[in-house]
């Protein structure tokens, strides 16, 4: 072994998921030096194994400014990361299975009116006409024509590759196992291999961000969750929309190759790093899939999987400066919905480093909320209680 390599840079980033990688890319575009340490491969965790829903519809209103910003980035994806990542504005349709669901979709449209989502409510009759393949339980729904889907396996690693091309130094298979602040700046160590010194640190370690925050005196109730995914063999193309269901439960989309990607329910952790789909969740997902899309009855599931996502109790991320340590910024806890907003979260983090503030409102995501709540049991959380925060 030769000695440990030492690097000095402007910003050190822990985690090469879509959030860390897009922050790295945005920082490089500002001409700021960046080192990313990723313990595995960039975009191989949540960011690379998720459902691929790129949707604004259904998000809490507090997330919509961020989601709109992300929407613009997605619109320029090829110029930004050099690949289209199978991104399609195919439409995201949220199904209502009851009049109450329909009413709540209508309410959401009203609430989100200030944002240009272009939601269109579709009645049962029109729905039958437009998509005869939908099962009979759908009584209508809400279409966001500009929302869509992408292939996370391709998109998330491509963000890291783009950052690297733009001059970010990316160290894959480099786990950060020591972080500290020596009064002047941050010091990160990866085993005996690498030591990074930087005046700024971004905590983008996904579900594993908790210990870093805690080290700086900011323990938050971050829990891991493991959404279940399944994919069918390719079947003839019949559906463009990415489907969700009001109230949650199941979501699915059909990719260009013909496979359907479905999600719903919870898996289980094999260990701190890995997760698997759960048998009962697979059974429930299968039943719901057949109900939603009867044509799938005879298709086969060829694969199921899960991932490890960081969840916070109010289903909102922590995005913003540390309350204890100048130069530290958090971006984690996207609670099952960070793929669409990830690229914008990255830009926001870059702005925070450079300007100390972001042009996008992020007050709702402040880490302060957990400490305010601890001081006063009754303290309101910023969660938008009228919307069920469900994955796509």
């Amino acid at each position, binding site marked *: 072994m030769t000695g440990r390599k030492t690097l000095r840079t402007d910003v050190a980033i822990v985690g090469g998921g879509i959030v860390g990688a897009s922050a790295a890319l945005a920082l490089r575009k500002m001409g700021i030096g960046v080192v990313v340490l990723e313990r595995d*491969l960039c975009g*191989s965790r949540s960011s*690379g194994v998720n459902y691929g829903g790129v949707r604004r519809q259904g998000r809490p209103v507090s997330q919509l400014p961020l989601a709109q910003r992300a929407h613009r980035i997605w619109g320029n994806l090829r110029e930004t990361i050099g690949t289209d990542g199978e991104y399609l504005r195919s439409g995201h349709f949220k199904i209502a299975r009851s009049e109450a669901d329909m009413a709540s979709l209508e309410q959401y449209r009203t609430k989100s009116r200030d944002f240009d989502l272009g939601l269109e409510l579709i009645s049962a009759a029109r729905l039958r006409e437009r998509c005869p393949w939908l099962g009979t339980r759908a009584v209508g729904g809400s279409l966001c024509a500009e929302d869509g889907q992408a292939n996370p*396996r*391709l998109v998330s*690693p491509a963000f890291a*590759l783009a950052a690297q091309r733009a001059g970010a130094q990316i160290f894959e298979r480099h786990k950060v196992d020591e972080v500290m602040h020596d009064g002047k700046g941050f010091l990160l160590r990866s085993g005996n291999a690498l030591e990074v010194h930087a005046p700024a640190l971004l905590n983008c370690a996904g579900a594993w961000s908790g210990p870093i925050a805690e080290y700086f005196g900011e323990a938050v109730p971050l829990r891991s969750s493991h959404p279940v995914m399944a994919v*069918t*063999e390719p079947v003839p193309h019949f559906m463009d929309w990415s489907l969700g269901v009001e109230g949650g439960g199941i979501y699915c989309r059909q990719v260009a*190759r013909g496979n359907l990607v479905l999600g719903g329910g919870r898996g*289980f952790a*094999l260990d701190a790093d890995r997760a*698997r*789909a*759960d*048998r*009962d969740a*697979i*059974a*429930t997902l*299968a*039943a719901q*899939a*057949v109900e939603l899309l009867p044509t*799938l*009855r*005879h*298709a*086969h*599931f*060829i*694969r*199921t*999987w899960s991932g490890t996502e960081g969840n916070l109790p109010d289903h909102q991320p922590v995005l913003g400066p540390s309350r204890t340590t100048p130069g530290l910024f958090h971006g984690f806890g996207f609670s099952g919905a960070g793929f669409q907003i990830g690229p914008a979260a990255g830009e926001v983090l870059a702005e925070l480093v450079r300007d100390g503030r972001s042009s996008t409102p992020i007050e709702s995501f402040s880490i302060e909320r957990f400490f305010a709540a601890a001081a006063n049991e009754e303290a309101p959380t910023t969660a938008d209680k009228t919307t069920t925060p469900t994955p796509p």
Partner: protein
Amino acid sequence: MTAASSSALQPVIVGAGPAGVRAAEALVAHGLRPVVIDEASRAGGQIYRRPPASLAERSANVLYGFEARRADAVHTAFDALRERIDYRPDSLVWNAQGGRLDVLHGPTRSTSSVPYGQLIVATGATDRVLPVPGWTLPGVYTLGGAQVALKFQGCAIGQRVVFMGTGPLLYLVAYQYAKAGAKVAAVLDTSRFADQLAATPAMLRQPAVFAKGVYYVAWLRAHGVALHGGVRPLRVLGDVAESRVAGVAWHDGREEHTLACDAVGFGYALRSETQLADLLGCRFEFAPLHRAHLPVRDAAGRSSVRGVYLAGDGAGIMGADAAEWAGERAALALLADSGVAVDTARAAMLEGKLHKLGAFRQGLERAFPVPHDWAAHAPDELVVCRCENITAGTLRRTVAEQGADEMNRLKALSRVGMGRCQGRMCGVAAAEILAHATGQPVQQVGRLRGQAPIKPIPIHLATTAPSTEGAGA
């Protein structure tokens, strides 16, 4: 009652090949009533596969040749156990989680969930495939597939067949075809006869097995079958009009040859079926002899997971005789671990035999090495993954342009192994291409992560949370 009361659940065996059958026999002999789950409709496994009952019974001699006696012995042993085990044929284990196996029953189109306390995994093997241009033409089969057609369906894959690749199965299947009256146009072996000569001392550790191999070769020669060693398969030629095999082309080191045929059987020995062990959480390691990542086990067959035992080809290709010994040995380990007194001398003897076979296996690998330069010669347009139509060129580009250096990443970026077979067929070849393209030894490219289902399951059969069928007393 000793054993039955020592654990609430009867042990479960997955696989009713030679390993599973002998494991079941040993458990029954000690008073247990194991559950035996097998995907096939009749017990026997790959080598001693039995034709469906609906086909007129052909004699064991016709079906299994030299193996007839052993086949008979395994079948007889199983038939004698039939009433004393809980046998579930036509049953695919598609998932394992939390001490239960999820099972799909083909004919009744139903599912069940089988709890286990102890489990013997004897899931066997499938062909190791290193494709050649043209391998997707109708009329091209794996060696195992060609043999199954003969044993199970009672038909040949063609009128004039070329067998190509390497491994003992190459000559065996050619012999079986010729014996059955098919015209064997040639046997094309990628290993050199010099390899086989050099390996002779090691192979003489199993003189009877060695003698059989020598016999097949001699018989084929005597019957005018052309045998070529040291070849490099170039492509399977296609009849465009009929979209079917028309011949093969190969290189012998000096020049190119072609030969007309209407079917090809090809393969490079076998690969272990390890997915269930993976879902069970067994630790894997690279096994140089097998050129594969395999679940680790001790000499008795204990895996790294308490209560899970591994036996037979599923934990490393050792052949049918070894499968029988390993099955029995694993059963004895399971019994001993549950506090049942077993014949330790017998256990030691089985371990000794398995150990000795190791030297023979070294010889076999020396005699029939996987062509290590296969990846170097695979042309860019060669389809590696036929489910997703992914070529060697695509894989190489994924390495060059996106830096993939590991199997799961290669899969994520290129779709290789993302189809119905989920890498069971193309995984070996993709790993060879990846290793070559990145200049790493093949053990370093890793292995595809296991996830359910082990084989595709129809959605409407997955819909009900499987009813739990007690496997207890």
